[in-house]
Protein backbone atom coordinates (compact mmCIF):
# COMPACT_ATOMS: atom_id res chain seq x y z
CA UNK A 1 0.00 0.00 0.00
CA UNK A 2 1.17 3.46 -0.85
CA UNK A 3 1.38 6.04 1.91
CA UNK A 4 3.32 9.22 2.50
CA UNK A 5 6.39 8.39 4.48
CA UNK A 6 6.07 9.38 8.07
CA UNK A 7 9.29 9.45 9.89
CA UNK A 8 9.80 6.37 11.97
CA UNK A 9 10.45 8.56 15.00
CA UNK A 10 7.02 10.14 14.74
CA UNK A 11 5.39 6.78 14.30
CA UNK A 12 7.08 5.50 17.43
CA UNK A 13 6.19 8.67 19.30
CA UNK A 14 2.48 8.36 18.47
CA UNK A 15 2.38 4.76 19.62
CA UNK A 16 4.27 5.52 22.83
CA UNK A 17 2.09 8.51 23.66
CA UNK A 18 -1.09 6.53 23.11
CA UNK A 19 0.03 3.79 25.45
CA UNK A 20 0.45 6.52 28.10
CA UNK A 21 -3.05 7.81 27.36
CA UNK A 22 -1.86 10.89 25.46
CA UNK A 23 -1.92 12.13 21.89
CA UNK A 24 0.29 14.31 19.70
CA UNK A 25 -2.16 17.20 19.55
CA UNK A 26 -2.93 17.08 23.27
CA UNK A 27 -6.35 15.50 22.92
CA UNK A 28 -7.63 12.81 25.26
CA UNK A 29 -8.03 9.34 23.77
CA UNK A 30 -11.77 9.71 23.27
CA UNK A 31 -11.88 13.36 22.18
CA UNK A 32 -12.84 14.48 18.71
CA UNK A 33 -10.98 17.31 17.05
CA UNK A 34 -12.64 20.69 16.92
CA UNK A 35 -15.19 20.77 14.15
CA UNK A 36 -17.38 23.22 12.29
CA UNK A 37 -20.50 22.50 10.29
CA UNK A 38 -21.57 24.95 7.63
CA UNK A 39 -24.74 24.39 5.63
CA UNK A 40 -26.05 25.73 2.35
CA UNK A 41 -22.60 26.08 0.79
CA UNK A 42 -23.48 24.84 -2.70
CA UNK A 43 -26.26 26.96 -4.20
CA UNK A 44 -27.18 24.66 -7.06
CA UNK A 45 -27.70 21.68 -4.77
CA UNK A 46 -31.00 21.01 -2.99
CA UNK A 47 -29.00 20.68 0.20
CA UNK A 48 -25.36 20.91 1.14
CA UNK A 49 -22.99 21.04 4.08
CA UNK A 50 -19.30 21.37 4.70
CA UNK A 51 -17.71 19.80 7.74
CA UNK A 52 -14.22 20.67 8.88
CA UNK A 53 -13.03 18.12 11.42
CA UNK A 54 -9.60 19.38 12.39
CA UNK A 55 -7.92 19.71 9.02
CA UNK A 56 -10.14 17.09 7.39
CA UNK A 57 -12.65 18.78 5.14
CA UNK A 58 -15.67 17.17 3.50
CA UNK A 59 -18.34 18.73 1.35
CA UNK A 60 -21.64 16.95 0.78
CA UNK A 61 -24.15 17.99 -1.85
CA UNK A 62 -27.65 16.59 -2.16
CA UNK A 63 -29.39 16.45 -5.53
CA UNK A 64 -32.93 15.26 -5.96
CA UNK A 65 -34.16 13.75 -9.15
CA UNK A 66 -37.20 11.85 -10.36
CA UNK A 67 -36.78 8.25 -11.46
CA UNK A 68 -38.22 4.77 -11.29
CA UNK A 69 -38.26 2.85 -7.98
CA UNK A 70 -36.65 -0.54 -7.41
CA UNK A 71 -39.08 -3.30 -8.38
CA UNK A 72 -38.98 -4.87 -4.89
CA UNK A 73 -39.92 -1.60 -3.15
CA UNK A 74 -42.22 0.14 -5.66
CA UNK A 75 -43.65 2.56 -3.11
CA UNK A 76 -40.41 4.04 -1.75
CA UNK A 77 -37.98 6.67 -2.89
CA UNK A 78 -34.40 5.79 -3.68
CA UNK A 79 -31.29 6.75 -1.72
CA UNK A 80 -27.92 6.73 -3.46
CA UNK A 81 -24.66 7.61 -1.74
CA UNK A 82 -21.46 8.15 -3.68
CA UNK A 83 -18.07 9.28 -2.45
CA UNK A 84 -15.31 10.96 -4.42
CA UNK A 85 -11.81 11.06 -3.05
CA UNK A 86 -10.90 14.10 -5.12
CA UNK A 87 -7.23 14.01 -6.21
CA UNK A 88 -6.60 17.56 -5.01
CA UNK A 89 -7.30 16.50 -1.44
CA UNK A 90 -4.32 14.23 -0.89
CA UNK A 91 -1.35 12.70 -2.70
CA UNK A 92 -2.94 9.37 -1.79
CA UNK A 93 -5.94 9.99 -4.05
CA UNK A 94 -5.79 9.28 -7.74
CA UNK A 95 -8.14 10.31 -10.51
CA UNK A 96 -10.38 7.64 -11.97
CA UNK A 97 -13.40 5.64 -10.93
CA UNK A 98 -13.92 5.25 -7.15
CA UNK A 99 -11.45 2.76 -5.67
CA UNK A 100 -12.21 0.35 -2.85
CA UNK A 101 -11.63 3.04 -0.21
CA UNK A 102 -14.10 5.42 -1.83
CA UNK A 103 -16.63 2.63 -2.27
CA UNK A 104 -16.25 1.59 1.36
CA UNK A 105 -16.62 5.18 2.59
CA UNK A 106 -19.80 5.67 0.56
CA UNK A 107 -21.25 2.41 1.76
CA UNK A 108 -20.58 3.16 5.43
CA UNK A 109 -22.30 6.55 5.11
CA UNK A 110 -25.12 4.91 3.15
CA UNK A 111 -25.61 2.17 5.76
CA UNK A 112 -25.91 4.71 8.57
CA UNK A 113 -28.60 6.71 6.78
CA UNK A 114 -30.44 3.71 5.38
CA UNK A 115 -30.51 1.46 8.43
CA UNK A 116 -31.51 4.19 10.86
CA UNK A 117 -34.31 5.01 8.39
CA UNK A 118 -33.16 8.62 8.61
CA UNK A 119 -35.03 9.57 5.44
CA UNK A 120 -38.71 8.65 5.28
CA UNK A 121 -38.38 7.09 1.82
CA UNK A 122 -42.07 6.15 1.77
CA UNK A 123 -42.89 9.87 1.64
CA UNK A 124 -40.79 10.24 -1.51
CA UNK A 125 -43.08 8.13 -3.66
CA UNK A 126 -44.88 10.03 -6.41
CA UNK A 127 -46.63 7.21 -8.25
CA UNK A 128 -46.09 3.66 -6.90
CA UNK A 129 -44.05 1.51 -9.25
CA UNK A 130 -43.55 4.33 -11.71
CA UNK A 131 -42.18 7.56 -10.29
CA UNK A 132 -40.32 8.27 -7.10
CA UNK A 133 -37.78 10.80 -5.91
CA UNK A 134 -34.15 9.76 -5.93
CA UNK A 135 -31.96 11.37 -3.29
CA UNK A 136 -28.33 11.57 -4.42
CA UNK A 137 -25.89 12.10 -1.58
CA UNK A 138 -22.50 12.99 -3.03
CA UNK A 139 -19.61 13.04 -0.61
CA UNK A 140 -16.72 15.17 -1.78
CA UNK A 141 -13.52 14.91 0.23
CA UNK A 142 -11.66 18.22 -0.06
CA UNK A 143 -8.84 17.67 2.39
CA UNK A 144 -7.68 14.40 3.89
CA UNK A 145 -6.30 14.45 7.42
CA UNK A 146 -7.79 11.23 8.71
CA UNK A 147 -11.20 10.02 9.83
CA UNK A 148 -13.04 10.69 6.59
CA UNK A 149 -15.87 8.46 7.76
CA UNK A 150 -17.06 10.55 10.73
CA UNK A 151 -16.65 13.80 8.83
CA UNK A 152 -18.53 12.45 5.80
CA UNK A 153 -21.36 10.98 7.87
CA UNK A 154 -21.75 14.25 9.78
CA UNK A 155 -21.69 16.31 6.58
CA UNK A 156 -24.22 13.98 4.95
CA UNK A 157 -26.58 14.33 7.90
CA UNK A 158 -26.19 18.11 8.02
CA UNK A 159 -26.77 18.32 4.27
CA UNK A 160 -29.91 16.18 4.47
CA UNK A 161 -31.26 18.42 7.24
CA UNK A 162 -30.48 21.38 5.00
CA UNK A 163 -32.28 19.90 1.97
CA UNK A 164 -35.28 21.63 0.51
CA UNK A 165 -37.53 19.88 -1.95
CA UNK A 166 -39.58 21.71 -4.49
CA UNK A 167 -43.34 21.51 -4.12
CA UNK A 168 -45.15 19.66 -6.85
CA UNK A 169 -48.46 18.41 -8.10
CA UNK A 170 -49.16 15.37 -10.24
CA UNK A 171 -51.34 16.15 -13.23
CA UNK A 172 -52.15 13.28 -15.61
CA UNK A 173 -48.97 11.46 -14.63
CA UNK A 174 -46.80 14.50 -15.21
CA UNK A 175 -45.08 16.41 -12.45
CA UNK A 176 -45.75 20.06 -12.25
CA UNK A 177 -43.39 22.11 -10.12
CA UNK A 178 -45.09 24.62 -7.88
CA UNK A 179 -43.55 27.58 -6.08
CA UNK A 180 -42.24 27.08 -2.57
CA UNK A 181 -40.21 24.41 -0.81
CA UNK A 182 -40.68 21.71 1.79
CA UNK A 183 -37.89 20.21 3.89
CA UNK A 184 -36.77 16.66 3.16
CA UNK A 185 -38.49 14.27 5.62
CA UNK A 186 -35.56 13.43 7.92
CA UNK A 187 -36.68 11.29 10.89
CA UNK A 188 -33.47 10.14 12.52
CA UNK A 189 -29.97 11.45 13.04
CA UNK A 190 -27.34 8.74 12.58
CA UNK A 191 -23.87 9.63 13.85
CA UNK A 192 -20.74 7.62 13.09
CA UNK A 193 -17.94 7.36 15.62
CA UNK A 194 -14.67 5.87 14.39
CA UNK A 195 -12.08 4.23 16.61
CA UNK A 196 -8.50 3.34 15.84
CA UNK A 197 -6.65 0.67 17.77
CA UNK A 198 -3.06 1.62 18.57
CA UNK A 199 -0.99 -0.45 21.00
CA UNK A 200 -4.15 -2.17 22.23
CA UNK A 201 -5.75 1.16 23.15
CA UNK A 202 -8.81 2.67 21.52
CA UNK A 203 -8.64 6.24 20.29
CA UNK A 204 -11.48 8.23 18.79
CA UNK A 205 -11.26 10.35 15.63
CA UNK A 206 -7.78 9.37 14.38
CA UNK A 207 -5.74 11.94 12.48
CA UNK A 208 -4.06 10.85 9.26
CA UNK A 209 -0.74 10.18 11.00
CA UNK A 210 -2.55 8.16 13.65
CA UNK A 211 -4.38 6.19 10.95
CA UNK A 212 -1.03 5.31 9.46
CA UNK A 213 0.09 3.83 12.77
CA UNK A 214 -3.16 2.10 13.73
CA UNK A 215 -3.66 -1.66 13.68
CA UNK A 216 -7.34 -1.56 12.86
CA UNK A 217 -10.33 0.71 12.60
CA UNK A 218 -13.90 0.33 13.83
CA UNK A 219 -16.84 2.56 12.98
CA UNK A 220 -20.00 2.41 15.05
CA UNK A 221 -23.04 4.38 13.93
CA UNK A 222 -25.76 5.08 16.46
CA UNK A 223 -29.25 6.48 15.94
CA UNK A 224 -31.04 9.12 18.01
CA UNK A 225 -32.29 6.49 20.49
CA UNK A 226 -28.72 5.44 21.22
CA UNK A 227 -29.09 2.10 19.43
CA UNK A 228 -26.49 0.81 17.02
CA UNK A 229 -27.58 0.96 13.39
CA UNK A 230 -24.39 0.25 11.47
CA UNK A 231 -20.91 -1.14 12.03
CA UNK A 232 -17.79 -1.48 9.96
CA UNK A 233 -14.41 -2.83 10.88
CA UNK A 234 -11.54 -1.86 8.62
CA UNK A 235 -7.78 -2.09 8.46
CA UNK A 236 -5.51 -5.07 8.63
CA UNK A 237 -5.50 -5.72 12.37
CA UNK A 238 -8.13 -7.06 14.69
CA UNK A 239 -10.21 -6.29 17.78
CA UNK A 240 -11.00 -8.50 20.73
CA UNK A 241 -14.64 -8.82 21.73
CA UNK A 242 -13.93 -6.86 24.93
CA UNK A 243 -12.59 -3.92 22.91
CA UNK A 244 -15.61 -4.00 20.61
CA UNK A 245 -18.05 -3.82 23.53
CA UNK A 246 -15.99 -1.06 25.13
CA UNK A 247 -16.15 0.88 21.85
CA UNK A 248 -19.92 0.43 21.54
CA UNK A 249 -20.44 2.17 24.88
CA UNK A 250 -18.16 5.08 23.97
CA UNK A 251 -19.87 5.40 20.58
CA UNK A 252 -23.23 5.81 22.27
CA UNK A 253 -22.14 8.70 24.53
CA UNK A 254 -19.90 10.36 21.92
CA UNK A 255 -22.60 9.98 19.29
CA UNK A 256 -25.12 11.76 21.49
CA UNK A 257 -22.71 14.69 22.04
CA UNK A 258 -21.95 15.09 18.34
CA UNK A 259 -25.58 14.69 17.34
CA UNK A 260 -26.62 17.67 19.45
CA UNK A 261 -24.12 19.90 17.70
CA UNK A 262 -24.78 18.68 14.14
CA UNK A 263 -28.57 18.85 14.40
CA UNK A 264 -28.41 22.33 15.94
CA UNK A 265 -26.32 23.78 13.10
Amino acid at each position, binding site marked *: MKSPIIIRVKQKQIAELVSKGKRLDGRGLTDHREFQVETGVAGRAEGSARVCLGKTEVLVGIKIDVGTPFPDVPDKGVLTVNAELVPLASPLFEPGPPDENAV*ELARIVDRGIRESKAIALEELCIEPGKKVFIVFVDVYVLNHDGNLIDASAMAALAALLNTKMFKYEVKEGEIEVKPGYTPLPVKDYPIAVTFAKINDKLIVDPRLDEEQVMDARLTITTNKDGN*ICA*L*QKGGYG*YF*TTQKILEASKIAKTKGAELRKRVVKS
Partner: protein
Amino acid sequence: MKKEVLKISKKKSEKLIDKKGIRIDGRELNKLRPIKLEVGILDNANGSAYIEQGKNKILAGVYGPMEVHPKHLAMSDRALLRCRYHMAPFSVQERKSPAPSRREIEISKVIKEALEPAIFLEYYPRTSIELFIEVLQADGGTRCASLTAASLALADAGIPMRDLATACAAGKVDGHLVLDLNDVEDKEGEADLPLALIPSLNAVTLLQMDGIVTLEEFEQLVNMAVEGCKQIHKLQKEALKAKYITVKEEPKE
Protein backbone atom coordinates in the same frame (compact mmCIF):
# COMPACT_ATOMS: atom_id res chain seq x y z
CA MET B 1 -23.04 -30.34 -7.68
CA LYS B 2 -26.64 -31.36 -7.36
CA LYS B 3 -29.09 -29.47 -9.48
CA GLU B 4 -31.96 -28.06 -7.55
CA VAL B 5 -34.67 -25.58 -8.15
CA LEU B 6 -34.67 -22.73 -5.67
CA LYS B 7 -37.91 -21.16 -4.72
CA ILE B 8 -37.65 -18.89 -1.78
CA SER B 9 -41.20 -17.83 -1.26
CA LYS B 10 -42.77 -16.24 1.70
CA LYS B 11 -46.18 -14.72 1.99
CA LYS B 12 -46.20 -11.23 3.46
CA SER B 13 -48.25 -12.26 6.47
CA GLU B 14 -46.15 -15.33 7.24
CA LYS B 15 -44.02 -15.15 10.37
CA LEU B 16 -40.32 -15.88 10.09
CA ILE B 17 -40.28 -17.56 13.49
CA ASP B 18 -43.18 -19.57 14.92
CA LYS B 19 -44.41 -19.69 18.51
CA LYS B 20 -42.09 -22.58 19.39
CA GLY B 21 -39.08 -20.61 18.24
CA ILE B 22 -38.63 -22.59 15.02
CA ARG B 23 -37.39 -20.67 12.01
CA ILE B 24 -38.71 -20.68 8.46
CA ASP B 25 -36.19 -23.34 7.41
CA GLY B 26 -36.93 -25.53 10.45
CA ARG B 27 -33.92 -24.50 12.54
CA GLU B 28 -33.84 -23.50 16.18
CA LEU B 29 -32.71 -19.94 16.97
CA ASN B 30 -29.07 -20.75 17.77
CA LYS B 31 -28.45 -23.42 15.13
CA LEU B 32 -26.22 -23.16 12.06
CA ARG B 33 -27.37 -24.28 8.65
CA PRO B 34 -25.91 -27.61 7.46
CA ILE B 35 -22.36 -27.00 6.28
CA LYS B 36 -20.39 -29.06 3.80
CA LEU B 37 -16.73 -28.25 3.22
CA GLU B 38 -14.35 -29.67 0.65
CA VAL B 39 -10.70 -28.84 0.24
CA GLY B 40 -8.57 -29.06 -2.90
CA ILE B 41 -11.18 -29.26 -5.61
CA LEU B 42 -9.63 -27.04 -8.30
CA ASP B 43 -6.88 -28.49 -10.47
CA ASN B 44 -4.95 -25.39 -11.46
CA ALA B 45 -5.14 -23.38 -8.25
CA ASN B 46 -2.42 -23.72 -5.63
CA GLY B 47 -5.14 -24.11 -3.06
CA SER B 48 -8.91 -24.30 -3.22
CA ALA B 49 -12.03 -25.01 -1.23
CA TYR B 50 -15.76 -25.41 -1.74
CA ILE B 51 -18.45 -24.62 0.78
CA GLU B 52 -22.13 -25.33 0.98
CA GLN B 53 -23.83 -23.56 3.83
CA GLY B 54 -27.56 -23.99 3.59
CA LYS B 55 -28.25 -23.18 -0.04
CA ASN B 56 -25.06 -21.15 -0.49
CA LYS B 57 -22.58 -22.70 -2.88
CA ILE B 58 -19.23 -20.98 -3.07
CA LEU B 59 -15.84 -21.76 -4.58
CA ALA B 60 -12.56 -20.23 -3.42
CA GLY B 61 -9.22 -20.54 -5.19
CA VAL B 62 -5.75 -19.29 -4.25
CA TYR B 63 -2.82 -18.61 -6.57
CA GLY B 64 0.59 -17.75 -5.23
CA PRO B 65 2.76 -16.57 -3.64
CA MET B 66 3.83 -15.31 -7.05
CA GLU B 67 5.34 -12.34 -8.82
CA VAL B 68 3.34 -9.12 -8.42
CA HIS B 69 1.74 -7.44 -11.41
CA PRO B 70 1.93 -4.47 -11.74
CA LYS B 71 5.38 -4.52 -10.19
CA HIS B 72 5.15 -1.23 -8.29
CA LEU B 73 2.59 -2.77 -5.95
CA ALA B 74 5.17 -5.18 -4.53
CA MET B 75 6.11 -4.60 -0.90
CA SER B 76 9.64 -5.13 0.29
CA ASP B 77 8.67 -6.49 3.69
CA ARG B 78 5.69 -8.70 3.03
CA ALA B 79 3.39 -10.30 0.50
CA LEU B 80 0.47 -8.48 -1.04
CA LEU B 81 -2.88 -10.20 -0.51
CA ARG B 82 -5.46 -9.48 -3.16
CA CYS B 83 -9.01 -10.71 -3.00
CA ARG B 84 -11.83 -10.77 -5.51
CA TYR B 85 -15.28 -11.73 -4.26
CA HIS B 86 -17.59 -12.18 -7.18
CA MET B 87 -21.12 -13.40 -7.66
CA ALA B 88 -22.10 -15.38 -10.73
CA PRO B 89 -24.87 -13.68 -12.74
CA PHE B 90 -27.10 -16.71 -12.11
CA SER B 91 -26.41 -16.91 -8.37
CA VAL B 92 -29.38 -14.77 -7.38
CA GLN B 93 -33.06 -14.55 -8.29
CA GLU B 94 -32.72 -11.54 -10.62
CA ARG B 95 -29.72 -11.83 -12.95
CA LYS B 96 -26.78 -9.90 -11.58
CA SER B 97 -24.57 -8.02 -14.01
CA PRO B 98 -21.16 -9.73 -14.07
CA ALA B 99 -19.36 -6.40 -13.64
CA PRO B 100 -18.17 -5.96 -10.04
CA SER B 101 -20.74 -3.99 -8.05
CA ARG B 102 -19.94 -1.62 -5.21
CA ARG B 103 -21.15 -4.27 -2.79
CA GLU B 104 -18.70 -6.79 -4.22
CA ILE B 105 -15.82 -4.30 -4.08
CA GLU B 106 -16.56 -3.62 -0.41
CA ILE B 107 -16.90 -7.31 0.47
CA SER B 108 -13.62 -8.09 -1.33
CA LYS B 109 -11.95 -5.44 0.81
CA VAL B 110 -13.34 -6.58 4.15
CA ILE B 111 -12.58 -10.26 3.43
CA LYS B 112 -9.01 -9.36 2.51
CA GLU B 113 -8.60 -7.34 5.70
CA ALA B 114 -10.15 -10.13 7.74
CA LEU B 115 -7.73 -12.76 6.43
CA GLU B 116 -4.50 -10.75 6.57
CA PRO B 117 -3.96 -11.00 10.35
CA ALA B 118 -4.10 -14.80 10.03
CA ILE B 119 -1.38 -15.11 7.38
CA PHE B 120 2.40 -14.83 7.84
CA LEU B 121 2.65 -12.42 4.93
CA GLU B 122 6.14 -11.37 6.06
CA TYR B 123 7.46 -14.78 4.93
CA TYR B 124 6.94 -13.87 1.27
CA PRO B 125 8.14 -10.33 0.59
CA ARG B 126 7.77 -8.93 -2.95
CA THR B 127 5.14 -11.50 -3.91
CA SER B 128 1.39 -11.52 -4.20
CA ILE B 129 -1.19 -14.00 -3.06
CA GLU B 130 -4.31 -13.93 -5.21
CA LEU B 131 -7.58 -15.07 -3.73
CA PHE B 132 -10.61 -15.59 -5.93
CA ILE B 133 -14.07 -16.27 -4.60
CA GLU B 134 -16.99 -17.16 -6.85
CA VAL B 135 -20.50 -17.36 -5.43
CA LEU B 136 -22.39 -19.89 -7.55
CA GLN B 137 -25.60 -19.87 -5.56
CA ALA B 138 -26.43 -17.28 -2.92
CA ASP B 139 -28.72 -17.68 0.06
CA GLY B 140 -27.72 -15.03 2.60
CA GLY B 141 -24.49 -14.85 4.54
CA THR B 142 -22.28 -15.27 1.48
CA ARG B 143 -19.50 -13.06 2.82
CA CYS B 144 -19.13 -15.26 5.89
CA ALA B 145 -19.30 -18.52 3.96
CA SER B 146 -16.81 -17.09 1.43
CA LEU B 147 -14.37 -16.21 4.17
CA THR B 148 -14.66 -19.65 5.74
CA ALA B 149 -13.90 -21.26 2.37
CA ALA B 150 -11.12 -18.75 1.59
CA SER B 151 -9.28 -19.64 4.81
CA LEU B 152 -9.32 -23.30 3.81
CA ALA B 153 -8.12 -22.49 0.31
CA LEU B 154 -5.18 -20.52 1.74
CA ALA B 155 -4.29 -23.39 4.05
CA ASP B 156 -4.62 -25.82 1.14
CA ALA B 157 -2.17 -23.67 -0.83
CA GLY B 158 0.36 -24.33 1.94
CA ILE B 159 0.55 -20.70 3.00
CA PRO B 160 1.69 -20.49 6.63
CA MET B 161 -1.06 -19.18 8.86
CA ARG B 162 -1.46 -18.42 12.55
CA ASP B 163 -4.88 -20.05 12.53
CA LEU B 164 -7.87 -20.53 10.27
CA ALA B 165 -10.10 -17.49 10.17
CA THR B 166 -13.78 -18.35 10.40
CA ALA B 167 -16.88 -16.27 9.88
CA CYS B 168 -20.48 -16.46 10.96
CA ALA B 169 -23.38 -14.03 11.18
CA ALA B 170 -25.88 -13.42 13.94
CA GLY B 171 -28.88 -11.18 13.71
CA LYS B 172 -32.31 -10.16 14.85
CA VAL B 173 -35.40 -11.59 13.19
CA ASP B 174 -38.98 -11.04 14.35
CA GLY B 175 -37.62 -9.75 17.66
CA HIS B 176 -35.52 -12.89 18.29
CA LEU B 177 -31.75 -13.09 18.21
CA VAL B 178 -30.71 -15.80 15.77
CA LEU B 179 -27.56 -17.40 14.41
CA ASP B 180 -26.55 -17.73 10.73
CA LEU B 181 -29.31 -15.90 8.86
CA ASN B 182 -30.57 -17.22 5.53
CA ASP B 183 -31.59 -15.02 2.62
CA VAL B 184 -35.18 -14.34 3.71
CA GLU B 185 -34.18 -13.67 7.32
CA ASP B 186 -31.43 -11.33 6.14
CA LYS B 187 -33.77 -9.34 3.90
CA GLU B 188 -36.83 -9.25 6.13
CA GLY B 189 -35.16 -9.32 9.53
CA GLU B 190 -34.27 -6.35 11.70
CA ALA B 191 -30.50 -6.72 11.84
CA ASP B 192 -27.61 -8.76 10.47
CA LEU B 193 -24.15 -8.82 12.01
CA PRO B 194 -21.44 -10.75 10.17
CA LEU B 195 -18.31 -11.41 12.22
CA ALA B 196 -15.00 -13.16 11.50
CA LEU B 197 -12.88 -14.67 14.21
CA ILE B 198 -9.36 -16.03 14.46
CA PRO B 199 -10.08 -18.27 17.45
CA SER B 200 -6.55 -18.84 18.80
CA LEU B 201 -5.85 -15.07 18.86
CA ASN B 202 -9.34 -14.20 20.13
CA ALA B 203 -9.25 -11.71 17.25
CA VAL B 204 -12.32 -10.30 15.56
CA THR B 205 -11.13 -9.42 12.06
CA LEU B 206 -14.38 -8.67 10.29
CA LEU B 207 -17.31 -6.91 11.86
CA GLN B 208 -20.15 -5.24 10.07
CA MET B 209 -23.77 -4.68 10.82
CA ASP B 210 -26.89 -3.24 9.37
CA GLY B 211 -30.18 -2.90 11.14
CA ILE B 212 -30.99 -1.50 14.54
CA VAL B 213 -30.07 -3.15 17.85
CA THR B 214 -29.65 -1.94 21.41
CA LEU B 215 -26.26 -2.10 23.15
CA GLU B 216 -27.37 -5.17 25.14
CA GLU B 217 -28.56 -6.98 22.03
CA PHE B 218 -25.32 -6.05 20.33
CA GLU B 219 -23.30 -7.71 23.06
CA GLN B 220 -25.41 -10.87 22.81
CA LEU B 221 -25.13 -10.93 19.02
CA VAL B 222 -21.34 -10.64 19.17
CA ASN B 223 -21.18 -13.54 21.63
CA MET B 224 -23.56 -15.65 19.53
CA ALA B 225 -21.57 -15.05 16.36
CA VAL B 226 -18.32 -15.92 18.18
CA GLU B 227 -19.85 -19.22 19.32
CA GLY B 228 -21.02 -19.90 15.76
CA CYS B 229 -17.50 -19.24 14.47
CA LYS B 230 -16.07 -21.72 16.95
CA GLN B 231 -18.43 -24.43 15.68
CA ILE B 232 -17.51 -23.74 12.06
CA HIS B 233 -13.81 -23.68 12.99
CA LYS B 234 -14.09 -27.34 14.06
CA LEU B 235 -15.65 -28.26 10.72
CA GLN B 236 -12.87 -26.42 8.89
CA LYS B 237 -10.19 -28.41 10.69
CA GLU B 238 -11.99 -31.67 9.93
CA ALA B 239 -12.26 -30.75 6.25
CA LEU B 240 -8.52 -30.06 6.05
CA LYS B 241 -7.68 -33.30 7.82
CA ALA B 242 -10.08 -35.21 5.56
CA LYS B 243 -8.14 -34.20 2.48
CA TYR B 244 -4.64 -34.70 3.79
CA ILE B 245 -5.29 -37.96 5.57
CA THR B 246 -6.61 -39.55 2.37
CA VAL B 247 -3.63 -38.20 0.44
CA LYS B 248 -1.32 -39.80 2.96
CA GLU B 249 -3.01 -43.17 2.62
CA GLU B 250 -2.99 -43.31 -1.17
CA PRO B 251 0.61 -44.50 -1.73
CA LYS B 252 -0.13 -47.79 0.13
CA GLU B 253 -2.25 -49.11 -2.69
